[in-house]
């Protein structure tokens, strides 16, 4: 979901690699390139080009922010889940998102940026998070649909990141992917239950949710390859492994059959099997909407950010008290 980070980079500062300066740096650069070409992993304390570091901080922190903000749309339904079972599942899923955010912040911090700096960037609106979380969760069927489509798209995007050249990020992704497979399955199962055992009104609500989430979900893979200027460098560095369009196609191909099993219609009249390509063709994507949401003007951007900032500010006294308490206990522990 989160390679969107690279697509928005060129629009901000520092989008292009700096010229190499000294002979020493040139040697480092060459050694680094050789390691990347050999498929080696880069660790936190290894030499790396500034632009590689900067790209990673941006991508990993945006990924982390997405996990954290991603708790908000689903948290909205915890207290209103229809059964205790669904409530426990949703709680576990939201708790996982928190955990994933923490793994990723820790990975970003290995690159020399503090947690507080990362939070500042999110809270001030300087850093982005995935566009998908700026859409509202209006009905219970949105929970299942997010699991099926949004987590499905995220997994499609995240699996190749397990082979990212930056090892702390790759390790975090392995853990995340392992935990996240239940997210998509629980969503599909929740929708399937409503489609097979539900009333006509409930089935109509599932279709309504799919109608609203389909296009934002396929936008999660980011703009078309032709409009994704930073992708090439990131591919070269092994930060990104598969292009936006290829991942999107893979997702659509997998999802069409799932929709049929579920008995819902995907809201794209141009969705057609292409015998020659052996892929599904899809209709035009409204990229204007995508850039509008990324730019801060989606249905829920302000609400999400203010909820996040409020949670951070309301928790300030707890963080301070915990530190004060720890400082008080320090001499005692030493004496013991």
């Amino acid at each position, binding site marked *: 979901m989160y390679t969107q980070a690279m697509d928005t980079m060129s629009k901000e500062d520092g989008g292009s690699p700096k010229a190499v300066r000294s002979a020493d740096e040139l040697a480092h650069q060459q050694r680094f390139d050789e390691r990347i070409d050999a498929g080696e992993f880069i*660790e936190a*304390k*290894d030499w790396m080009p500034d632009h590689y570091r900067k790209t990673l901080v941006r991508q990993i922190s945006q990924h982390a922010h997405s996990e954290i903000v991603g708790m908000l749309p689903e948290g909205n339904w915890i207290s209103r889940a229809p059964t205790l079972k669904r409530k426990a599942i949703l709680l*576990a899923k939201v*708790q*996982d998102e928190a*955990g994933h955010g*923490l*793994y990723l912040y*820790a990975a970003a*911090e*290995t690159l*020399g*940026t*503090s*947690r*507080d*700096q990362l939070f500042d960037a999110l809270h001030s609106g300087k850093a982005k998070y995935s566009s998908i979380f700026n859409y509202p969760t209006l009905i219970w069927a949105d929970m299942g649909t997010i699991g099926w489509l949004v987590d499905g798209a995220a997994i499609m995007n995240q699996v190749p990141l397990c082979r990212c050249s930056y090892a702390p990020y790759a*390790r*975090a992704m392995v*853990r995340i992917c392992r*935990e996240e497979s239940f997210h998509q399955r629980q969503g599909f199962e929740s929708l399937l239950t409503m489609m097979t055992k539900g009333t006509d009104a409930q089935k109509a609500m599932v279709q309504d949710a799919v109608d609203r989430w389909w296009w934002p979900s396929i936008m999660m893979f980011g703009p078309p390859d032709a409009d994704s200027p930073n992708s090439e460098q990131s591919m070269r560095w092994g930060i990104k492994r598969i292009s936006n369009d290829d991942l999107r196609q893979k997702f659509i191909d997998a999802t069409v059959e799932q929709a049929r099993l579920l008995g819902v219609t995907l809201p794209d009249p141009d969705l057609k099997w292409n015998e020659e390509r052996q892929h599904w063709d899809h209709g035009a994507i409204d990229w204007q909407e995508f850039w509008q949401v990324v730019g801060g003007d989606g249905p829920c951007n302000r609400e999400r950010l203010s909820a996040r900032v409020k949670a951070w500010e309301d928790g300030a006294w707890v*963080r*301070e008290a*915990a*530190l004060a*308490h*720890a400082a008080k*206990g320090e001499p005692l522990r030493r004496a013991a």
Partner: protein
Amino acid sequence: MSGAASKAEWPLFEVFVRSKAGLDHKHCGSLHAADPQMAIQMARDVYTRRQEGTSVWVVRSDQITASDPGDKAAYFDPMEDKVYRHPTFYELPASLDHM
């Protein structure tokens, strides 16, 4: 780890988890906590949500001394030519193959 960390930031801890009795503790990640007790509690929530562990160690990251990656070659490569430290170096009669 970072000089940029502000004073109000909780210190960083490294987390080690023993996945089951008989195995060693393995590094699995890091987290911020106000003190070691809290770090243990949070490590349980962050790293063992699916019974991944039976025991957790935490240690403040700034208490770890590590080898310098720049010295990697000088430190570890001299072992490369000491193949006689491995059992496969010694050719024995086939009848003794399992020695």
